[in-house]
């Protein structure tokens, strides 16, 4: 069992937890992820690592309620435990293996969208600890959903916050913020974009045009996370890659996002049904327009 030592609701339906997982905390690197399972009957849920404390043997995870399983997770309190906590999985971010002096000369731009701010944080923090300054854009729907602003500010070179509705920071999507930054005279050698697939898709469309190399972190459906099942396969260029062992980070300009987004919908109907069953019991028989039960 993997004990929960701290729980914080960062924003509406976005939670942060510190979880005791000694082996994961000892081995993990920025860019990697974990799989958690709440109980005997739960799903294996892949989650990005937001932070780690090697001494304390803890991992910080951040997640948003998107279905029945994450709703179950959100009900866990300090002192409760996950039945299973597996990792670190996937490959570390490329820069971890790069020469630090060369890395210091690179101008890096991180683009974080929504809950995607969580996996960006340990990358920027790692760079900061190795003396590399990276600029960060955090995009959020509105002021209330913005997370980890203070934490990011402490480790980022320049931090730019933009909200879709203009309720805080700059006004507009992250793509607008990227264009604005470039128009303001900033130049970058590398972009790293992590967030919802639709955001990563549009960032990549833009940066391709701007000839700015872009790395994205993919979060497709997964089961085992160790290469065994192939559920997470993606088309990258003309190759098929498994996000769990070949990724999760890939050259964003080579990803077939439309296909990846379609594949993400695979169990949406089932998940919607499970979620409604959880909140409404057996009384729900479709017709709500959300669960797909009436299709």
């Amino acid at each position, binding site marked *: 069992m993997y004990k929960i030592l701290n729980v914080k609701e960062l924003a509406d339906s976005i939670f942060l937890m510190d979880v005791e997982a000694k*082996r*994961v905390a*000892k*081995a993990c690197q920025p860019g*990697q992820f974990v799989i958690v*399972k709440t109980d005997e*009957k*739960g*799903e*294996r849920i892949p989650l990005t690592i937001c932070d780690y404390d090697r001494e304390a043997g803890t991992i910080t995870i951040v997640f948003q309620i998107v279905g*029945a*399983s994450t709703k*179950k997770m959100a009900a866990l309190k300090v002192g409760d435990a996950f*039945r*299973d*906590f*597996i*990792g*670190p*999985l996937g490959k570390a971010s490329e820069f971890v293996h790069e020469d630090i002096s060369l890395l210091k000369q690179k101008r890096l731009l991180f683009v974080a969208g929504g809950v995607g701010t969580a996996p960006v944080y340990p990358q920027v923090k790692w760079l900061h600890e190795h003396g590399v300054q990276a600029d960060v854009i955090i995009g959020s729907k509105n002021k209330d959903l913005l997370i980890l602003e203070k934490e990011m500010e402490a480790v980022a070179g320049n931090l730019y916050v933009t909200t879709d509705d203009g309720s805080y920071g700059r006004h507009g999507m992250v793509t607008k913020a990227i264009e604005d930054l470039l128009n303001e005279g900033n130049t970058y050698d590398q972009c790293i974009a992590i967030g919802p697939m639709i955001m990563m898709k549009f960032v990549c469309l833009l940066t391709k045009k701007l000839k700015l190399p872009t790395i994205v972190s993919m979060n497709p459906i997964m*089961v*085992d996370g*160790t*290469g*065994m*099942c*192939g*559920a997470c*396969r993606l*088309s990258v260029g003309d190759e*098929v890659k*498994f996000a769990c*062992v070949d990724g999760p980070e890939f050259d964003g300009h080579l990803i*077939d996002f439309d*296909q990846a987004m*379609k*594949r993400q*919908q*695979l*169990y949406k109907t*089932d*998940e919607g049904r*499970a979620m409604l069953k959880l909140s409404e019991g057996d009384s729900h028989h479709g017709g709500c327009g959300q669960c797909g039960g009436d299709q």
Partner: protein
Amino acid sequence: MARRMEKVPVREQDAKVRATNFEEVCLGYNEEEAVSEAERCLNCKNAKCITGCPVLIDIPAFISEVKEGNFEKAAAVIGKDSALPAVCGRVCPQESQCEGKCIMGIKGEPVSIGKLERFVADWARDNHIEPIPAKEKKDKKVAVIGSGPAGLTCAGDLAKRGYAVTIFEALHEPGGVLVYGIPDFRLPKEAVVAHEVENVKKLGVEIETNVVIGKSTTIDELITEEGFDAVFIGSGAGLPKFMGIPGEQANGVFSANEYLTRNNLMKAFLDDYDTPIQRGKKVAVVGGGNVAMDAARTALRLGAETYIVYRRSETELPARVEEVHHAKEEGIEFHLLTNPTEILVNEDGWVRGIKCVKMELGEPDESGRRRPIVIPGSEYEIEVDTVIMSLGTSPNPLISSTTEGLAVNRWQCIIADEANGATSKEGVYAGGDAVTGAATVILAMGAGKAAAAGIDEYLSCSN
């Protein structure tokens, strides 16, 4: 006399009934049936059946005990050589191993060795016969990677010799392919697999789940930081293969590994488990091995009309005869000498069918099997909403790429000495699918057993 030439028939769930449930197909012998089947054994002095068994169980000796009604003694005879008799009695390809060599098989049917082994193992479980841990403990630690058939066997054998053994399992349940791969209707998870794992634990073996070697820690760290004196790698088969045909990324195309893992490990077939599975209406399973049969029979039980699509003919089907027979009985349709060329996709990105060509068999290829050749102009479509690819696996690089000095062959399988499991790295042994590529449970057990002997010899010599 005629009866003596035939096996005592084994009771099975009716095909129509079992096609809708996940209960075990074969019900096994009762005491009376087992004794009367055992009486068919000629107790050959030069018993050929033993040579057909990868773990060399003294088959005539255990059958003699069954004949006398000494089931506990029979269990002890099997226990000397096999850690997983209830599993092997169910999933071994006996027809090509022990039973294939049985003298009785020349003029009639061979003795039903597999069903007798299963009977003895189930009897021992029901009568709470427990394995006895080693009396003398050794002060050497061995790490076993993977808790599938190879790992469990190796760990059990080493524990019996007195070593302190820890198994590291990547998934959240121990058992490897016995848990994620082989379905309940062939191998019950609670009654059989969990019990066999418990037996290995009772020998003193510790199992740590959720540890992915190569990620959570490495083999080198196990040796240098955690003080293990030797390591056995039984990490199993790897990444599922796909065909590389158009439409394979569509929604509704799964690897057999994924489909079976969702159903077996995650128990998606039970309503109160959270993991979803696509219950197709019409399902095509591509491939002809045991895994393909398992996937097809699972889809059938989930309510689908199910087809097997295989490019060679029935004779070349790599699956066990019994599995093919069961699949047909349950109503699975076989499209033999048929090869998919494209998966047809609707505008929403979901599978709507599979385009195939008919094949004919030409000259034998490198594998010795006749090479299938496309018949021109034979294209046709099968309407399906789900396609399951069961084409085998390629090795997982997680361990080989993170272990200093561990040699692999050109297929990326770990190179290990067949006789003792030794790899190119001192103190590191390997066996099972990680070495051979996808094979059978019993071959993996044989390799685990050989490696346990190899590790024992290595640790006895080194001080």
